[in-house]
């Protein structure tokens, strides 16, 4: 079993965690994000939102960008800038095209026994702002949550 973790605290109040692309690591990612969000002063409900949004983003990377290739890495960074939390997840897999995304119709999905496609919608609901960036050799989802 591949089991690597690198957690680095850098200056400028940025926290970084690198995990391999396995759903086995999701609990650890959630714990990391919740701890740091608490440290930045977010309340319990906001921490729940952030934790779920990051879980969904990380799950999408594992499933869609890397297609469950556990030898790949996901990098998670958290930073507080001007009363706003910025969380980014970086991967080097297949890029997600946000233009191809449409709001899920749960009733329709129930009928067709489909699942999935729900994570992106949840992320948008839970966070204040979301952007997808495609660079030469990596992809990034950047999410923001305002600190009230």
């Amino acid at each position, binding site marked *: 079993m591949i089991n690597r973790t690198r957690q680095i605290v850098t200056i400028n109040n940025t926290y970084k965690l690198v995990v391999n692309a396995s*759903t*086995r690591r*999701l*609990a*650890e990612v*959630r*714990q*990391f994000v919740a*701890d740091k969000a608490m440290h930045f002063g977010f309340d319990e*409900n906001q921490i*729940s939102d952030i*934790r*779920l949004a990051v*879980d*969904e983003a990380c*799950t999408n990377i*594992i*499933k869609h960008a890397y297609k469950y290739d556990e030898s790949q890495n996901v990098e998670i960074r958290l930073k507080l800038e001007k009363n706003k939390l910025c969380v980014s997840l970086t991967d080097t897999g297949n890029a997600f095209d946000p233009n191809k995304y449409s709001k*899920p119709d*749960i*009733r329709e*999905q*129930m*009928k067709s*026994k*489909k*699942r*999935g496609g*729900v*994570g992106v*919608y*949840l992320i948008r*609901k*839970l966070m204040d702002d979301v952007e997808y960036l495609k660079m030469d050799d990596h992809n990034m989802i950047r999410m923001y949550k305002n600190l009230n």
Partner: protein
Amino acid sequence: MLTVMKNFHINHRHSDEIEVLEISGELDAHTASKLEDSLKTLIDKNRHNIIVNCSDLEYIASAGLGVFMAYIEDVRGLGGDIKLTNMNERVYNVFDLLGFPTLYDIFDEEEEAVKQFQNSDQ
């Protein structure tokens, strides 16, 4: 800080007509397959009146919701239902964000779901 890995567990109870899955811990893309296996097993045994008691469920991600989405039509098609009960507020909020309360029977207490099944059988 110490990293606490919360697992996901299912305790299965049943009476004559009703199957109850008590789920606890954290339901995510890693643990969802456990719930899926349990539901599949019940459906394969023609046990279609299913209550999922979430009183000790601390966390749910969309992969967990996906399991309910994938099996509800089968179960209802066979004359049964999957009813959800005893969710904490945070777990309920996730179901609510996706509009589940209008599509699924969600009750505060397990007894209400039991009654509902009993009434529909009469």
